[in-house]
């Protein structure tokens, strides 16, 4: 790592602190925002997330090498951490820190995008089932029962086998498609109670069609639990991606994802523990931050629950 990488890394930390400060100022205007930050782990969690997102965006600046670059395949395999390679090198003589920084793009990206897919489908299915009730509800919920009966990683392994070499966007889509079942149940439960409320009846009486009633009146009121489950779900998606990549069925090598970095480093765990340990630590930290922020969001968005 040269001096500029360190400066960039410091810059990322400062940027993350700024993000937390700005969000805190914005949030202090509302009661739920203050509740959010009263949660002791909310600010640190937000900082960790902002830091890793900044590192992902600024990967070329904070990483001294390209993620695929095999620095010196003869002499620099499995090197322990040093000033040159802060987190050491992996069995293929690649800089672990550089791969970690670029890998943040893939791992965080997959987590966020796959969750977006899952929340969109889960929200649509849950809202449809809960709003229209009847046979549509029954059919959709039986589908959800089937989806939930299959352990997700098992379902993913079977489906991923359809491809020889899976592209990352396909992987994102597949993870999203296997991850919406629980969300749809949650949304359905919310919609079931909301649809009986007076303001929904009023909207209907004013002549609003089902699409408008659901989109403008029902779903916005069901947003809180959806947001919370999404925040907590990103972590699960990241763990799933890591597990799949670890089994060699996720993000294809040599693209760096935190999961396949663990897979790459695993065989040399005894001589070079750093190449599998640091990516795992990064996953744990980010998932922990997501859980912390998710917990705080739940407390903040649920006014019945005064902050602990």
């Amino acid at each position, binding site marked *: 790592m040269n001096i500029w990488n360190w400066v960039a890394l410091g810059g990322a930390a400062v940027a993350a602190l700024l993000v937390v400060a700005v969000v805190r100022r914005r949030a202090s205007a509302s009661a739920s925002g203050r509740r959010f930050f009263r949660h*002791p*782990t909310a600010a640190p969690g937000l900082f960790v997330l902002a830091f890793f997102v900044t590192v992902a965006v600024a990967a070329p600046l904070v990483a001294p090498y390209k993620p695929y670059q095999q620095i010196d395949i003869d002499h620099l395999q499995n090197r322990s951490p040093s000033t040159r390679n802060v987190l050491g090198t992996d069995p293929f003589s690649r800089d672990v820190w550089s791969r970690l920084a670029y890998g943040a793009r893939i791992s965080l990206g997959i987590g966020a995008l796959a969750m977006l897919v899952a929340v969109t489908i889960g929200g649509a299915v849950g809202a449809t089932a809960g709003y229209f009730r009847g046979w549509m509800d029954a059919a959709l919920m*039986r589908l959800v*029962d*089937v989806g*939930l*009966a*299959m*352990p*997700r*990683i*098992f379902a993913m*392994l*079977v*489906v991923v*086998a*359809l*491809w*020889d070499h899976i592209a990352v966007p396909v992987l994102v889509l597949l993870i999203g498609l296997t991850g919406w079942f629980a969300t749809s149940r949650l949304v359905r439960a919310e919609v079931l109670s909301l649809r009986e409320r007076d303001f929904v009846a009023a909207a209907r009486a004013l002549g609003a069609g089902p699409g408008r009633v659901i989109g403008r009146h029902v779903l916005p009121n069901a947003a809180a639990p959806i947001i919370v489950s999404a925040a907590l779900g990103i*972590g699960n998606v990241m*763990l799933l991606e*890591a*597990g799949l990549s*670890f*089994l060699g069925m996720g993000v294809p090598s040599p693209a760096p994802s935190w*999961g396949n970095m*663990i897979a790459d480093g*695993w065989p040399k*765990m*005894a001589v070079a*523990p750093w190449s*599998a*340990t640091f990516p*795992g630590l990064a*996953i*744990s*930290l980010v*998932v*922990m931050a*997501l*859980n*912390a922020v998710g917990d705080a969001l739940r407390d903040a968005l649920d006014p019945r629950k005064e902050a*602990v």
Partner: protein
Amino acid sequence: MIAWVVRRVAASIAIIWAVVTLTFFVIHAARGSPFLPEQSQSVSPETLDRLRRQFGLDRSLPEQYVLYLRNLARGELGESFVLRRPVADALADAMPHTFFLALAALLIDFTAGLALGIYQAVRERSVGDVVLGNVALFVNSMPTFWLGLVLLLGFAQWLHWFPTGGPSDPVLCPRVDSLPCLLDFFWHLTLPALTLGLVGAAGTARFQRAAMLEVIRQEYVRTARAKGLREGRVLLVHALRNALLPFITLVGLAFPFLLTGAVLVETVYSWPGMGLLAVRAILQRDYYVVTGAALVTSAMVVLGSLIADLLYAVADPRIRVRGA
């Protein structure tokens, strides 16, 4: 009540059928076949053809599916191409391993999780609560297989306290048939069970802390204290009983978690259970092992939620009245 049970069981069978059907068609559509070109270097094309015919792979997919269902109705799960033995036998060998792993993990999960959760709730906002809360959050956020690798590195590779993998010593204890071999089995079981159990316990502790806190603040707990009951009795008899109700949900959810976790943990520790069997079968396109594993896992998940519902009915009279 009986009508409810019958309906639930029928729905469960329908769910398992749907999962098996989906798995059947997806895995058959997957690239490659059980008889791969690599093998054909040593096996002539004629032999491959004969093998395909022998296993019925030359027929159309709907035909194969009908045949599979018909065999399934007779209780036959088919034949494994790779292991060259009935799928039922392979599953029967693997299931006890996953069962004991899951049992040991659940034991660690629930005892440690409950104890920590209750302790944290009782000592709310103390140093111990905050420290344990953050540790639990961290452990709960780890990829299970990564924790497995770390434990393996620390306790097996560096300290040599535990073996690096496998279910038993292959030389001294090929079968578990004597006391030393039983101890050997437990010795091999410790790290995988600890890996799964710790991650689960962290989640249970977080959950149970919240459940206990909710109950502790209720009026009837104050009443119990006002009656002059000892604090231990108030907490463990009056409060805990109601705080355990949401815990039942966790019991149902633990099944899928353990099965999912087992897939990866079994790979890390070369533990010959369902997870390892399923992963290998998927990679080798061993069709009937995959569908058989899907059958068993979905049955276990469905069973888990069924048991949770029944436990609810037993534990909470309000639900019994409504469910009956």
